[in-house]
Structure formats: structure tokens, C-alpha cells
């Protein structure tokens, strides 16, 4: 069981605002003291650049930075540290990967993605397709988030890439990645599969090798870590074939006026001074999650989401439209109160000290597909309680009353 009262003590944001109901962890999670302390410790005591100095504090910062890489490798069950590339966020990880794949794609090749993807796993592929004359195919979903029944018909011998999320940031669905990949590889074993794990990795135990994907991306800030740190994992033999994304310091072995030899993996993809403090503190985030147990965290957030889903239905009946399946599979519940704009809902909830997201959540194609202009999204994480569910439901009753629905 997750002891929310104990957990809240680790998150300083609740110190002066004990009744704060934070339901926007899908946008970014709150940060525990250990993460904040690690950032401060770096800046206060050993704020040296990495890989450069031979003095003590640079040795220390390099060691701590690389320790996070090793922990990330273990956390997602990668086969080596060389496969773990630190970026700024999921978006940059995807762009790095798209840029790398660009050279090997030719006019007429196909890229497949899903209509429910976050813009960051949709727009880079769409733009690449337009630039290079590729065929951009989109798997449809229904309002429960289920992929179109015949989605496999979109996969052909000409398909080179499939990009999908692990957990949808609006539907809250947990895609059966392992099965999907098996099905795809049966049709065409050469397809490169990128999985956006931004909404999954902080609560779903991920084993990239067992999933069978070729690349997996996520952000530290959605899993208790600092903003400004993301990860691209990809199979070493694939990364070896991709050209660098950015050129500059930290990513070279030797430079002459005529020629540059690039560094080995993973440094070849980490040009310039990275977010050292952030990467170092990210380790504390992973340790915290491991300490509480991912399985327990996942079960907790799904239980809260299910409770909220049930109470929304029971309390509002026909006045509420909930996006996604009846059986919740993540902490995410997006919905609309019929006749009340999502921004008004979110604003009134804010007056009751509840933070939710309102809008299209960077998934405009999905909202268009479902015929919804904007939705409200509540997302639950390890520091939320069943009381939080009751608080938001009470506040929503107030919303309905205000708008005489």
C-alpha cells in the first residue's frame, strides 16, 4: 500500500499548502526533497564541468553524472550504458532520433504513427515525411482508445518506422507494446519502432529488451526528476548507424582543420555541456520511485483514476463525457462537463486549490478525431489520495451548479 500521508512529507510543496490537490502530474510531477537537495548539493559543493577537469570536484561531478546513466540503464533494462543518451526532454529525444533516421529514409518509404500521439511524437514525423516525400500513415483510435481493428493493414514492406506511445497522455490507455511489436515484426521485421514512454516510465515497469522496441524515450520531470533532462534509449547497433544531432564540445574524439572524428556512444549524441545538476538529481528520483515500488505506485494511481472515473459517471451521468476506456489503465482521466468549457472548469477548480490541465494537452489530432474542442485532464500519482478524488468531485458539482447544468 502507498502511504500518501508519509509520501507527502517528502514533497516540500505541501509544506505551506497542505490541502493542495495536484492533479497535473501528466504535465510534470512534483519533486521530492531528495531530488531538490541533490541539485543544490551539486551547485553548492562540486559545480564542475564533466569529462574535463582532473581536479577533485570535476572527478566527482563526472562520476555522479555517469552513475545516473548506469541507474537509468538498470531501470529500463538496457544492455549497456552506451545506449543511454541524455537529452533535454522527450521531445528532444524524439527529434534527435528523427534527425538520425532521416538519412536512411527515401521518397515513398512509409512512417506509421497513431492519431492519439502527443504532438512531440507526431509533428516531427509529419514534418520529416513532408520534407522527404515519405508516406505518413496514421492509425485511428475509437473513443475508448482502442486502435482500429485492421491497423495491421497499414504496415507493409515499405514501412520503415512506427512511432507510438506506451501510455497515451489523454486517453490514459496502456498500449500492449510487446504484442504490437510482435505483430509488426511478423509483417516486416526491419521496421524501426520508437516508443514514447513519457507517461509510462514513472509508474510502469519498463524492460526495453523484453518489449522488443528499437528506441524508447522519456523525460525525468514526469517521474519526480528535474525539468531539462530527457533520455533516448536505442539499441546500440542502431545508434551506431545514426549521424550526430548536434556538433560541438563533448562529442568529439579529435578535430583537425580538415576532419573531425566523433566520440563513441553515448557521448557522440551529447554535444555541449549538459544539464549536469539535473542528470545527477535524476538519480534520486529513480531511487525514490524504486524505494516505493513501481508496481505499488501503478496500482495506486490506477485505483484513484478508476475511483474518479466511477464517481464522475455516478454523479454526472449524461452531463459528463469521459475520454478513454471504462477500465482505467493509468492515472490519467480526461473528460468534459457538457456545456461548460474546459477552461472554466479548470479555473473554478483552481479556486478550490485543485490543479488540473485544460485544453487539448498537445494532442490536437486526437481531440479533432473525437470531436472535442478541449478537455479537462486530472492525473493521479503517488502523492494523491482518495480524499483528492472526493475533493475534485465536490468541486465539479459546484461547477455544474454555477452553470445551471
Amino acid at each position, binding site marked *: 500500500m502507498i502511504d500518501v500521508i508519509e509520501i507527502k512529507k517528502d514533497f516540500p510543496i505541501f509544506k505551506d499548502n497542505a490541502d493542495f490537490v495536484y492533479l497535473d502530474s501528466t504535465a510534470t510531477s512534483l519533486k521530492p526533497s531528495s531530488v531538490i537537495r541533490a541539485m543544490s548539493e551539486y551547485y553548492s559543493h562540486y559545480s564542475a564541468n564533466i569529462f574535463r577537469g582532473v581536479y577533485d570536484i570535476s572527478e566527482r561531478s563526472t562520476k555522479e553524472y555517469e552513475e545516473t546513466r548506469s541507474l537509468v540503464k538498470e531501470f529500463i533494462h538496457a544492455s549497456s550504458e552506451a545506449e543511454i543518451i541524455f537529452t533535454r526532454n522527450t521531445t528532444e529525444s524524439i527529434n534527435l532520433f528523427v534527425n538520425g533516421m532521416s538519412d536512411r529514409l527515401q521518397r515513398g518509404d512509409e512512417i506509421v504513427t497513431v492519431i492519439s500521439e502527443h504532438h512531440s511524437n507526431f509533428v516531427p514525423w509529419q514534418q520529416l515525411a513532408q520534407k522527404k516525400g515519405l508516406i505518413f500513415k496514421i492509425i485511428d483510435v475509437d473513443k475508448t482508445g482502442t486502435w482500429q481493428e485492421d491497423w495491421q493493414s497499414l504496415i507493409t514492406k515499405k514501412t520503415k518506422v512506427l512511432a507510438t506511445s506506451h501510455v497515451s497522455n489523454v486517453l490514459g490507455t496502456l498500449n500492449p507494446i510487446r504484442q504490437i511489436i510482435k505483430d509488426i515484426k511478423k509483417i516486416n521485421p526491419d521496421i524501426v519502432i520508437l516508443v514514447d514512454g513519457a507517461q509510462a516510465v514513472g509508474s510502469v515497469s519498463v524492460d526495453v529488451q523484453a518489449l522488443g522496441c528499437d528506441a524508447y524515450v522519456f523525460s525525468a520531470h514526469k517521474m519526480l526528476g528535474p525539468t531539462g533532462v530527457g533520455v533516448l534509449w536505442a539499441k546500440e547497433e542502431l545508434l551506431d548507424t545514426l549521424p550526430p544531432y548536434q556538433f560541438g564540445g563533448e562529442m568529439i574524439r579529435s578535430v583537425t582543420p580538415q576532419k573531425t572524428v566523433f566520440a563513441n556512444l553515448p557521448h557522440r549524441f551529447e554535444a555541449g555541456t549538459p544539464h549536469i545538476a539535473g542528470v545527477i538529481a535524476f538519480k534520486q528520483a529513480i531511487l525514490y520511485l524504486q524505494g516505493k515500488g513501481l508496481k505499488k505506485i501503478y496500482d495506486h494511481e490506477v485505483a484513484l483514476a478508476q475511483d474518479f472515473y466511477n464517481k464522475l459517471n455516478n454523479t454526472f451521468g449524461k452531463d459528463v463525457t469521459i475520454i478513454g476506456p471504462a477500465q482505467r489503465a493509468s492515472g490519467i482521466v480526461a473528460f468534459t462537463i457538457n456545456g461548460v468549457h474546459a477552461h472554466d472548469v479548470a*479555473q473554478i477548480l483552481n479556486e478550490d486549490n485543485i490543479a488540473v490541465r485544460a485544453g487539448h494537452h498537445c494532442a490536437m489530432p486526437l481531440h479533432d478525431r473525437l470531436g472535442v474542442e478541449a478537455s479537462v485532464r486530472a492525473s493521479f500519482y503517488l502523492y494523491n489520495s482518495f480524499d483528492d478524488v472526493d475533493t475534485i468531485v465536490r468541486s465539479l458539482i459546484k461547477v455544474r451548479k454555477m452553470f445551471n447544468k
Partner: protein
Amino acid sequence: MASIYQEIILQHAESPHNFGRLPSSTNKIVLDNPLCGDVIQMEVEIRGKIVTDIKFTGKGCAISKASASLLTDFAKGKKIDELRALDKTSIIKLLGVELGPNRLKCALLPLEALQKLIHK
């Protein structure tokens, strides 16, 4: 913090004034805010540099509807020069509530529509 959903805003959002089409319009415009899906269509009838009639339709949040309702009420019968001088502060005054930077965008869409119309 006081609620921005004062009675006046809720009333205007529920039954906005000047809501509908204007067959006698001399100018019309459609504007949207793709970030929140708000859309406003505004039509004006301008005679002798005066806004003699004005109507709007569209969809949006309570703030944007109330803002359009109050603004169109205000604009009716006013000289174009006077309306050109309207700004953010005027809208906040009309609404009578404080708005944060994100909601201000909702409130300002009708003003943007009006100003584009009278600059045509």
C-alpha cells in the same frame, strides 16, 4: 482570491447580449484561438464612422463569451475613433474582475476581432 465567476460574468455567458448574425453588416471577421478552441465571428454595421450595430456568434469559455457580450454592448453607438482606443485595461474594467495571463487571452479575443473590423 475572489472568484472571477461573478454573477455578471455568469449571466452574460449564459445569455450573451448581441448574440447572433447581422444581415445588415458592413464588415465581418472570424477569429480563433487554436490553443483553447475558441472561435468568434463578429459582424458590424458602420455608418458615418459610428458602429450602429454589432453582433457575434462563436464558441468559447464563459470569460470569452461574457467579454464579447459586454464589449458589443459597449461598442454599439460608439464612434470608431473611441473604440480604437480600447485596450486590455478597458476589457478588464468592463468585466470587473482580475484575470491571470492565461485567461486574459480568452477575454481579449473579442477585442481583437472588433479592432480588426474597425481598422478594415
